[in-house]
């Protein structure tokens, strides 16, 4: 066990630092609150790809630098020190394209991997539906063969909670191809061109005020059979690859203990300075050990990866810890601000209202990419080997499954 860089890792880190110093935007040039544009994001991604810092672990045959998971980790640590533009590529590079690389055709791999890696094309993931959130396999959006014998498929239905659909070029889509077999067996995965006029994207107004997610409607969208990812009826198995990557991607984040301490230091309570409040100090310690525990769990996973072992569902613990933690941090920080805590205007609220913003985004974190409850089921079933709950929809043709409202 060694928490320091090996000489090779130190050399890689030094190179990455030098490259970032020469190429990344500087902290002092960054204006707080100013959203980076899509053009800036794409330019930064292209720059990284040209220098071998995009998708570091991807093999050379697909345009990646064929690096190690440690190099990827090191670059991410160093990149985080710079105010680089937002990253609209995470879903594509973390979920959609790996799904194509795992289950797609050779032609699709050749067509899509390179442009995605260079930030030229953006992807979204279309799984959730109004009638099936946690139960993603209950998808009702239909794909039927075109009656003209061309082998094409005609798609009708609606997806929901699609991040980035408004600016995506392509999407991977989980569809019902056979309602006469049990639900997991009648699904098939496709990729679609999001610019097709048969697709309508409508933003969802979130409780946090933003609109990062969308509803996506499909009306007689025609796709080629060659857009299928994996065999007909195998969509659920294909989607598992995507969802596992999603949970890993959402699992990051910090405990904000430093910001809470900064806040508490300047605030009075009846017991004196906020930072002297014993209850708060206990909470800070609790948050800290959870965040540190996650950090080192992630590094243990990295070690397993670097030894050629596959990280299993235990990677699910990241989000199940972080999301409720952030909600608790925000709520505690607002209590500390006392009456002032209701102000969400960054002009007046401490730390540019970061805790007010976190309070309003935390419920989404606890739901997106598998709710707290679903993740506990996954840990219990796939890690601990406990039995599935009773399933009333098992061995029942999808069309005969009771649906509520």
């Amino acid at each position: 066990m060694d928490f320091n860089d090996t000489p090779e890792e130190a050399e890689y880190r030094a190179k990455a630092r030098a490259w970032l110093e020469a190429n990344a935007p500087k902290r002092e040039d960054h204006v707080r609150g100013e959203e980076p544009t899509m053009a800036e994001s794409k330019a930064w991604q292209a720059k990284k790809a040209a220098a071998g810092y995009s998708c570091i672990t991807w093999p050379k045959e697909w345009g990646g630098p064929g690096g190690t998971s440690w190099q990827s980790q090191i670059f991410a640590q160093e990149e985080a020190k710079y105010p680089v533009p937002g990253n609209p590529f995470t879903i594509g590079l973390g979920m959609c394209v790996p799904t194509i690389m795992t289950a797609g055709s050779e032609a699709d791999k050749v067509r899509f991997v390179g442009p995605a890696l260079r930030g030229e094309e953006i992807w979204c993931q279309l799984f959730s539906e109004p009638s099936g959130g946690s139960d993603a396999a209950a998808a009702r959006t239909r794909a039927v063969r075109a009656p003209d014998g061309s082998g094409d498929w005609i798609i009708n239905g609606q997806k929901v909670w699609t991040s980035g659909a408004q600016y995506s070029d392509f999407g991977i889509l989980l569809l019902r191809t056979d309602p006469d077999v049990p639900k997991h067996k009648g699904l098939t995965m496709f990729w679609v061109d999001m610019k097709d006029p048969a697709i309508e994207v409508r933003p969802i107004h979130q409780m946090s005020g933003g609109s990062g997610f969308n509803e996506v409607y499909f009306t007689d969208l025609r796709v080629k059979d060659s857009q299928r990812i994996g065999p007909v009826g195998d969509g659920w198995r294909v989607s598992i690859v995507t969802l596992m990557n999603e949970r890993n991607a959402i699992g990051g984040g910090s405990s904000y203990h430093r910001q809470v301490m900064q806040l508490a230091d300047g605030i009075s309570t009846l017991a004196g300075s906020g930072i002297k409040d014993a209850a708060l100090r206990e909470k800070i310690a609790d948050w800290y050990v959870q965040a540190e525990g996650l950090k080192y769990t992630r590094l243990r996973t990295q070690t397993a990866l670097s030894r050629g072992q596959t990280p299993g569902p235990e990677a699910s613990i990241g989000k199940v810890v972080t999301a409720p933690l952030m909600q608790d941090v925000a709520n505690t920080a607002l209590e500390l601000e006392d009456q002032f805590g209701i102000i969400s205007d960054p002009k007046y609220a401490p730390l540019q209202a970061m805790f007010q913003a976190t309070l309003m985004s935390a419920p989404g974190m606890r739901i997106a990419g598998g709710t707290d409850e679903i993740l506990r089921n996954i840990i219990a079933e796939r890690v601990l080997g406990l039995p599935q709950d009773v399933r009333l929809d098992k061995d029942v043709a999808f069309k005969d499954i009771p649906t509520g409202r």
Partner: protein
Amino acid sequence: MNFDFSDDQKFLKSEARKFLDAHCSTATVRGVLDNVDRSYDEPLWKAVAAQGWMGTAIPEEHGGLGLGRMELCVIAEELGRALAPIPFASTVYGLAEAVLIAGSPAQKSALLPRIAAGELIGALATSEGPGVVSAGSIKASVADGKLTGEKLPVTDGDVAGVAVVLAKEAGQVNAYLVDLTGAGVTRETLQTLDPSRGAARLTFKGAAAERLGGAGEGLDIIEQVLNRMAVLLAFEQVGGADRALEMAKDYALNRYAFGRPIGSYQAIKHKLADMYVKNELARSNAYFGAWALDTDAPELPLAAASARVSACEASWYAAKENLQTHGGIGFTWEMDCHLFYRRAQQLGLVAGGAKQWKERLVTQLERRNAA
């Protein structure tokens, strides 16, 4: 970077598990628990000594194996898993570490070889009453090399040969080595929450005391010992918590209610998932602590506090919810759940409770933020 134990360390761990499976079943633990006259399992202690475990981190020049603290962590996890009813922590993480930190060459050569050989049991005698040990809480005093006062509870104080005792002399808090078999020492065995481990009230009336470390360094030495103990105990706690989770899982798979295994109900699944998450976080924090301990990194105080806080949380949660998962049978003397419930408390308090360690942790964070 590499965040796992080496193959050699993993081999040591699997050998330790095999050894303890063969020599320390829960029947062994009950042999001490159910017998008021026994405060540890002497045959197990001797067998462990024959394996050389007491000397794992003691340098070869003092009769030890001269391996690192990392190897000791691996053994600690297995001892915790087996609920080993022996004075290992007091002797090896307590007395031996105190002597390694502050002992004179003469003290080292007198004590370390005996510890490594399993011939000497040690104890830490710091507490005199409820609450945290501090300069203000210490009444025991030394004058002309003679110690007067009392200490309780002293884990393994009823069987230890030598204790590290905190006492005052000329207004300063010092650490002393005291031969508990000598004149002026009386011991009263205490009834405790975990009778599979021994504890005593020690009364000193002019007992010979030899200072360990410099004058006024007593609290500092103990703090250094506790930082090391916190990491090692965290491994014992993680070992116990993992086994409690395994027990809960096995029971949930085999116990049926309302026509199906109770492990298929989400109320039980989510409870066990939470146990798993806490155990993994505690394990990861303990690993970082192990690294900081083994390399004597400047991060040790913060890493030790993190390992301690995380392990206390995991072991307490696993112990109480394992019992809960078992339902009524879990509340019986015959079922092993209470062994873990008792040990979780014993380990959670013996080197200072989580509440105080949280305070230490935040103090360390404040120092780091200020730097």
